[in-house]
């Protein structure tokens, strides 16, 4: 097994776990964490792409790395925004994203 394959499998596993959490975990905080897991998996994938570029004679393709850095910043900002919203919701009542708004909350944090 080459390192690229191993990384690829790791990335796939992270994405799968993240997707599972994002779709099926009822609590918003876990959804946020799951989103970060998917993000990490995807960034790992960019890492592999950089490695593949290296195989073509470079020491390492710098473009995907630049993208990963940007992506991490974006993901960080998204997480911060989501957590801020969560906190505001905690002040105002129970946070949940499921169920149509007219129904009473059936889930607590």
């Amino acid at each position: 097994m080459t390192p690229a394959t191993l990384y690829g499998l790791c990335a796939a596993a992270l994405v799968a776990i993240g997707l599972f959490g994002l779709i099926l975990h009822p609590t918003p905080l876990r959804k946020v964490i799951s989103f970060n897991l998917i993000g990490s998996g995807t960034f790992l994938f960019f890492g592999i792409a950089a490695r593949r570029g290296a195989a073509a004679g470079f020491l390492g393709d710098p473009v995907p790395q630049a993208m990963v850095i940007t992506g991490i910043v974006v993901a960080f900002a998204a997480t911060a925004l989501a957590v801020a919203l969560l906190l505001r919701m905690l002040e105002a009542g129970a946070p949940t994203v499921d169920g149509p708004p007219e129904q009473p909350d059936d889930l607590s944090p």
Partner: protein
Amino acid sequence: MTAAGLLIAASVALPLLMALACLWPAFRDRAADWLVIAPLPALLAALLARGGSIVVAPPPLRLTLALDDVGAMLLGGAALLWAAAGAYAGSYLRGQPGLARFAVWWLLTLTGSLGCFIVADMTSFYLAFSVASLAAYGLVSFEGSTRAQRAGRVYMALALLGEAFILLGFVMLAIGAPQGNPLIRDAVALFPAAPLRDPALALLILGFGLKMGLVPLHVWMPLAHPVAPMPASAALSGIIVKAGVIGLIRFLPLEAALPGWGATLVGAGLFTAFYAVAVGVTQTQVKTVLAYSTVSQMGVVAAVLGAGLMTAAPGTALLAGFYALHHLLVKGALFLGVGVVMATGPRHRKLVLAVMAVLALSLAGLPLTSGALAKYAVKPLFGDGLAATFATLSAAGSTVLMLHFLRLLGGAAKPGAETPPAGIVWPWAVVALAAFAGPWAIFGGATALPLAASLGAKALWAALWPIGLGAVLWAGLRVLRLPAVPEGDVIVLADRLAPVVARAGDAVEQADGWLRRWPVAGMMLAGLAAGLSVLLWAGS
């Protein structure tokens, strides 16, 4: 840019500007008093600007107005009736709540209906037709009662369906045209060779037939026409249905013989003519009987057009237009007259009823009336076959229906009525006079038949015997107990669908609630991504 062109443009511009001026409260509150002037430019245009045209926007938009002979005939009649009914409305509805709103809908409907007669390009026709159809909703549902609301809903649903038919028909028709928005003339010239000729024709006949009330698309008429206030009923039944007539006149390829389609239209028209009579005689409301009479008469017009389409007979458009003009004026006068009869006490009642009787029997072709002229003019189109016999017999049917109407009218009166207000008598009298005199005045020009022949003994006999037959039939029917058929007859079948529709709506709402649950939407997201990827891969 000619004076005639400007006058033609003014006939839609003035009512439109008046409708816009209603955004200004000071005008809005008085708008109802000014309804009478809105159609006057159109009336002038019909008299003075025949043959004129104006290009409102040059190609590629190609918005064009033009007034040909058929258009001028119907435009003149419609403008006269709009003006009279507008004056009538000012008096009849004085002090009613929501009068300003009524005026806005009135002006918009007027703009659209007059526009139908003068536009020459396809987009503008669709625009004018839609404005007339949709704004008339405001007239139908004006009274706000449960009955009016139901009529408004049915009207709206079917009007929108008709619009959809017509739009698709137009698209199919225009697909062979070299540029967007062709002139109607150019598009119809391509019609016989168009790749989608048959579906396009079917859709156009459905769409315009719906507006004319061809059975079974007539169900909205007996609901909608009676519930509107009296002047609006006159406009709806007299004028708005003519938007369908002018549509068929403009869009049927009358210069190319299409026997199959012609026969279909003759069949549908004559069936409608008899069906509406059969249902109409079971009705007990005066205005509903008149609405069924409109359905029946429009059936005759459709049959006339179908007969012309079968053989590509020259002059079909003018003949159908002439018949439609006769119906427009007579039906307008009858509806306005119902209001006059209701408001008239015993002293003048006989006179008013006598005028109404002549008007009503004019629809059955009473000799010396416009109806006799109209029936005489269209007769040659039908030839000598079965269709001709049925067309003649339809006059007997009209007689039965009109005698039924007159009997109901005789019993209709408001308690304590004495002298009707002058504000409703004059408009009625003007339209009634026009209904007698107008068709005589233009007979020669419209039909190219010798007027004298229509007064010959043969013609008189041909007009009289169906009326006699009708009278005998009516007397026979009075012995029978007729079943009570609800207004709009087959619409009751649609009423049975109402719970099904409501359940379907509930089901959609439940499905939406389910789809909007987070796990469901999440799974959808993943599933769609997988599905689309597979399709992208498999398809390329």
